[in-house]
């Protein structure tokens, strides 16, 4: 696959055009955080609700940005819903590894987030992909 098609895989373009879990949640019960990418000015907002057993029961996002940042946010809401704080942190580290690591991602274990390995060829775009994930990370502090 050429590097462009690898970066803009169908699953990424699909999430960018039809973002899942998009739009604000009421605060409270949700908590809210935001992230800014100073190099492009893109801003993203993330809302999360925790269940009584302290799991992420709902995650939503809003904001505007490039296809990579929007798709990464949309995928994140699906990838992290239902997780404990600790498991969510592990998923964030796993996503960062997909973007910057050197070993081939395990497509079977990772599912659609593996599509983001195409970002490796474009180091300037790593911040775009991490924007929402870093905003979620801020909400995980106990």
């Amino acid at each position: 696959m050429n590097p462009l098609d690898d970066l803009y895989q169908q699953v990424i373009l699909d999430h960018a055009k039809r973002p899942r879990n998009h739009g604000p949640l009421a605060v409270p019960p949700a908590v809210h955080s935001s992230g800014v990418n100073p190099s492009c000015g893109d801003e993203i907002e993330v809302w999360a609700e925790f269940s009584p057993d302290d799991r992420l029961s709902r995650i939503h996002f809003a904001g505007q940005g490039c296809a990579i940042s929007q798709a990464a946010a949309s995928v994140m809401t699906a990838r992290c819903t239902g997780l404990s704080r600790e498991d969510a942190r592990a998923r964030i580290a796993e996503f960062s590894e997909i973007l910057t690591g050197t070993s081939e991602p395990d497509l079977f274990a990772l599912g659609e987030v593996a599509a983001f390995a195409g970002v490796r060829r474009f180091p300037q775009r790593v911040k775009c992909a991490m924007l929402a994930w870093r905003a979620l990370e801020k909400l995980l502090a106990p």
Partner: protein
Amino acid sequence: MAIPPAAPFPEPNWDAVRSSFPLLVSGAAESPELLYFDSAASSQKPEPVLSALDNFYRHDNANVHRGLYALSARATDAFENARATVASFFGAASPRDVVFTSGTTAAINLVAHSWGRANLKPGDRILLTELEHHSNLVPWQLLAAQTGAQLVFVPVLGPCGTLDESALDDLLTPGVKLFAFTHISNSLGTINPAAAWCARARSLGITTLVDGAQSAGHIPVNLSSLGCDFYAFSGHKMCGPTAIGALIARPGLLDAMPPFLGGGEMIESVSFLQSSWREAPWRFEAGTPPIAQAIGLAAACRYLDSIGLDHIAARDAALTAALKSSLASIPGLRIVGPPHERGSLVSFVMDQAHPHDLVTFAGEKGLCLRGGHHCTQPLMRKLGLPGTVRASLYFYNSFDEINAATRILADAGRYFA
């Protein structure tokens, strides 16, 4: 039959001009072919500038002003001759009005720290425009916080990017101590009527600063007719090296200003508790200056003069007009900025794709563009844009390149549709 007099500057052969830029020559042989459309960020460098740098380091390299030996004298002469060349290129009254800085940003900060702290008091107003690059905004925010001065802005009129001249009548009042504005907007290409504004400000006793980052080397700039008090520019955007630029001041202004950076080179006499300063411009050049870069900048001035600034401006304008009409044919592409006269750049957005996605796509095809807020975040927010894509040209670009770039952007539009 009378023979018409030969034009003093015949129009150059632009292909031959382009061939004196080694990076463009080798880039044309790459696959994909390099299409450099980011000269508003930094220009490419011609052979005469590269050889001036090389020649200085090989044959004349020593520190300036202090060495009592022939090599240092030679370096000092070359450095001070560079100052004279820059002064004459911009029509400054004297080389003594030229302070070498690392670029436009440092030049503006010099004015803010030195002139600003000495002249502003609480309640004074600093008039800027909504078009300004962060480098002609943030230094004044810092100064306002330190002095109690207030910032006021000439508003921009919608996405055409021209400024509201009628508001200027109300804003340009004697309570304003400084009017600092961009000559040509780096973000939208708007050309401001700098000479007229400087004349109006001067009649009210208001000091003016023109940010010349996008005008230097692109259009003829003669400071005696421009009439500003301060002009700031960067060498690397006008075929010169990086890390060199200058602040050029109206005669006498620099001598009345206190030092900004302290250190060697800028002093007359130093004791443990106090010092006295050299005269301007050396008072503002603490430490070893960018010697080779200044010499490279002078080579860039001579190079541009050998082509002729009138020819360069006309070539810039012809290329930009062609780019603008070519881009306008792409479905979903919307050009932002002034409808008519503009600097040599075109800013645009595309319905189908965010600027960063377009720039990444173009980059993979060899086309170098810039996407984002172009260091004008407040302007983008006011225009309701997430940023734009900017294609910026210089005289060394070609019409063939414009056609190739248009094809790539049309492909991008289909890719993200």
